């Protein structure tokens, strides 16, 4: 008989419940019931009343349509280049806001960020407008291609012999451009629909697993988001001057996108708070954190913008430097450059450093609106100088000439986009109702 055999009368191990990392389904349902009884989860606190948004959305639609008509008239009255540039400034701001919101939604999911649960629905609403943006972009693309290169001069016949364009033709040709444009649309449609629909489905069913679905899709989503955003910026913003190139360009556009999206969400939340909604669900603690995001992306934008400028300034390569010569030279763009340096970075940086500014909803909402205006100014600075260059310089009506066309062109896409945003906000609950991390967001507090 073996010596090592265990004695028959060993001490019995007490039966223990297997430790669980997750709640059981019954525990989860119990927590949902507890959540539903939370004072912040009153129905009228987290829903807008039926038809509360129709007035505002109708107003925006009328304003957008009127501005669009004025823009089209302006295209004939002044010229098509001017009108298209103005429209693109507004449209790129819309695309930036929607793309940034999609990015932040996916970041919140992949970081498992509990405090964002109550503000995430508004990010989803902004991101859900990506298909709208794509349709408006389709209009621009059709005008460019059928018009034979209005602002995207590489499409025009006159540039056919240009040596630099010939070298870049494997990338800059109509066929590949069209394919890329379709890919952007497809990726943005799929990603925004996954994020928005899954979240809305969770509101109804209360399935915890849907959060994992969204987290999984955020992983690959962030990768293709980065690629499509960078290449969108190359195709639509950098290619306005096909001789210019900057490997930082994608990040530069992304910085504006992230900044503008947080700003627009702060505005939406502030308006909802003003309507007496979201009491206890979105508090000054959430605004404080969103304010921190605005501050950090303001710094990030300045960091990227300066780094890009600095390298080009130092190396002094003609095809790169020319881009900055247009934008810091004649036609009032030097002034705009300084407005961006101080108004887009120095002033908001100093103001947003203060804790109080981030915690007072009205002040932060004002800063958010201001940052959106600065993003528009940034887009003007990128797009507008390309209108009256080269052979078109003689048509230049001056800085303030045709300002009405600029205003109408910028406002038109923003109003149309705003119409869809207001409709989206009114159509769904204002916060995700059954998010597994909702209790964290409802108890969110900054301990500094």
């Amino acid at each position: 008989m073996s010596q090592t055999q265990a004695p028959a009368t060993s001490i019995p191990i007490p039966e223990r419940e297997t430790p669980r990392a997750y709640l059981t389904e019954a525990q989860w349902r119990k927590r949902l019931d507890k959540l539903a009884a939370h004072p912040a989860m009153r129905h009228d606190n987290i829903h807008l009343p039926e038809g509360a948004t129709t007035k505002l959305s109708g107003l925006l639609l009328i304003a957008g349509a009127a501005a669009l008509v004025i823009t089209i008239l302006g295209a004939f009255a002044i010229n098509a280049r001017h009108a298209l540039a103005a429209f693109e400034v507004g449209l790129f701001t819309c695309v930036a806001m929607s793309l940034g919101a999609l990015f932040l939604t996916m970041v919140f999911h992949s970081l498992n960020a509990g405090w964002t649960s109550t503000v995430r629905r508004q990010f989803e609403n902004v991101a859900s407008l990506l298909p709208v943006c794509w349709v408006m972009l389709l209009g621009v693309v059709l005008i460019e291609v059928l018009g034979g290169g209005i602002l995207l001069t590489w499409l025009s016949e006159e540039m056919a012999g240009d040596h630099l364009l010939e070298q870049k033709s494997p990338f800059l040709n109509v066929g590949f451009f069209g394919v890329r444009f379709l890919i952007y649309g497809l990726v943005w449609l799929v990603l925004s629909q996954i994020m928005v629909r899954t979240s809305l489905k969770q509101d109804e069913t209360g399935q915890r697993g849907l959060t994992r679905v969204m987290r999984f899709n955020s992983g690959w989503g962030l990768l293709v988001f980065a690629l499509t955003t960078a290449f969108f910026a190359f195709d639509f913003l950098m290619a306005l001057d096909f001789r210019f190139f900057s490997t930082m360009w994608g990040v530069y556009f992304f910085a504006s996108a992230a900044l503008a999206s947080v700003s627009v969400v702060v505005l939406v939340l502030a308006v909802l708070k003003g309507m007496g909604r979201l009491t206890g669900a979105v508090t000054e603690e959430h605004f404080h954190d969103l304010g921190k995001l605005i501050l950090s992306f303001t710094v990030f934008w300045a960091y990227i913008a300066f780094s890009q400028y600095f390298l080009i300034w130092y190396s002094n390569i003609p095809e790169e430097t020319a881009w900055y010569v247009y934008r810091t030279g004649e036609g009032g763009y030097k002034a705009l450059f300084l407005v961006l340096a101080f108004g887009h970075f120095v002033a908001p940086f100093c103001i947003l450093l203060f804790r109080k500014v981030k915690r007072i909803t009205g002040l932060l909402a004002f800063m958010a609106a201001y940052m959106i205006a600065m993003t528009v100014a940034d887009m003007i600075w990128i797009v507008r100088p390309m209108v009256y260059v080269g052979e078109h310089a003689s048509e230049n009506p001056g800085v303030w000439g045709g300002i009405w066309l600029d205003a109408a062109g910028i406002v038109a896409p923003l109003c149309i986009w705003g119409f869809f945003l207001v409709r989206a906000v009114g159509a769904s609950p204002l916060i995700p109702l059954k998010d597994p991390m909702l209790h964290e967001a409802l108890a969110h507090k900054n301990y500094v």
Partner: protein
Amino acid sequence: MPELPKIPSVSEMMALASDYMPFIPKPAPRYVSEAGKPVHGIIAQFSKTPAVVHAAERVRDAGYTKWDVMTPFPIHGMEESMGIKRTILPAIAAGAAITGVAGALAMQFFMNSDYNIVVQGKPFLAWEPFTPITFELGILVTAFTCLFGMLALNGLPRFHHPLFARDRFLSVSDDTFFICIEASDPNFDPARTRALLESVGAESIELVEDEDR
């Protein structure tokens, strides 16, 4: 704005310095234990988080200023329960940042205006190459100020703390909470402080002696 901390009196600063410099005499203790050693304070032991939070609220309301709560993990909301004001560190950091930025700009300006060298045909005193240096020096000065300012405001580093001499206190890094009210607190009174700690539900109360030198 966070409230400015009170400027310590000369005797307080001498007491602080005596912790670091052995040739500076220690101030005479307010209280001496039966063994003849100076009294550091009284510690009270707790084993439940809510108990220590509520006890801290009571000690705060009793008006003590020189006391601390020791816990094995951070307890959110303890600052409010202890009545700790916001730190002055952000203001100090802002001052450091302005100093760093101004110093960097001044340094580069004087270096470049007195000793002009043409580099790559760029203009003298161009703001572009100044920017990274200004940024980096601003960050450097601010980061060091934040780190060392935080340590200084916390009274760190220090060679020794009387609490570490208590064997019972070692479990503070495991599963026990302590409140320590120091004898240097103007409100400290051996009998009344002990009675207060008893009334807030301490599981055990001990006198902590300081080391003689």
